């Protein structure tokens, strides 16, 4: 879903695209292609991780994946344990908390305009187990279309 928006508070015109991500297979990570024909940034990303009973800490990373190399643009500050369901929210104004119990994690992702065609947005889970499940993946992309 893409619609045009002329912004009075930004440079030039941009569009917003909403992506509903398909759930990856159990134990698998998620990767989304950057929308084509535009520079893009991630305004907001939300997803859920349900962990299985295997004892291990899972650590979430949001990764800017470019041909040849990758860079981490957001990371959870706390591992997710076995048999937990946790909501993750990533956007450009996130913060970090240190108190417990933690039921959700907010990540900060500085990403305005750094995604070019052929790049990918990955959700990495260090320590993922065979039946862990990523789900409910939603992305708002901000796009600056290339001039025709």
């Amino acid at each position: 879903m893409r619609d045009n928006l002329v912004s009075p508070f930004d440079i030039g015109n941009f569009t917003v695209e909403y992506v509903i991500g398909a759930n990856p297979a159990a134990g698998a990570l998620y990767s989304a292609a950057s929308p084509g024909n535009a520079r893009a940034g991630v305004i907001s990303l939300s997803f859920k991780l349900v962990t299985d009973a295997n004892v291990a800490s899972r650590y979430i990373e949001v990764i800017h994946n470019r041909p040849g190399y990758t860079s981490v643009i957001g990371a959870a500050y706390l591992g997710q344990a076995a048999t937990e369901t946790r909501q993750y929210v990533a956007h450009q104004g996130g913060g970090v908390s240190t108190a417990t119990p933690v039921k959700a994690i907010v990540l900060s992702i500085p990403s305005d305009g750094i995604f070019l065609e052929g790049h990918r947005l990955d959700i990495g889970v260090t320590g993922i187990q065979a039946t862990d499940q990523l789900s409910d993946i939603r992305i708002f992309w901000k796009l600056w279309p290339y001039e025709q």
Partner: protein
Amino acid sequence: MSVFAHTLEYTNVAKVTAQWDISAPLNARSELVMASFQIQTVVAAADRVVHVSIVRGANAHVLGSSCFAHVASTTWNYIVGQHGSLNPLAPFTDLYIPICSLPLITPGDTIRFLIHNHQAGDSWHYRAHALKFWNLE
């Protein structure tokens, strides 16, 4: 599309439901600027978590989430905003939920405030929210 306006709505009417919804303005793109509310929990033991979402059709995009369990028999104030940071240490009675700051809300969307693990009798109070919107031409 360059003309925008603000709205601020508030009510002191308590609500004893898991969620409260705001319909997106018609003929406009809008942005949630802030919200504030109080949640009072009953004695039933459960970890409550608050989500702020955009609901579009069958899909919900979680814009922001409280990070700490809101336990039984507790009154907390929540502030939803674009520029704050999360509370660093417990104990606290005011909890900040950061959200992003662009007009993502389109006509037909619903802005939803939701208590996960809502227990019968858990209630919302002093609900306020502000929207900024751009009229569609």
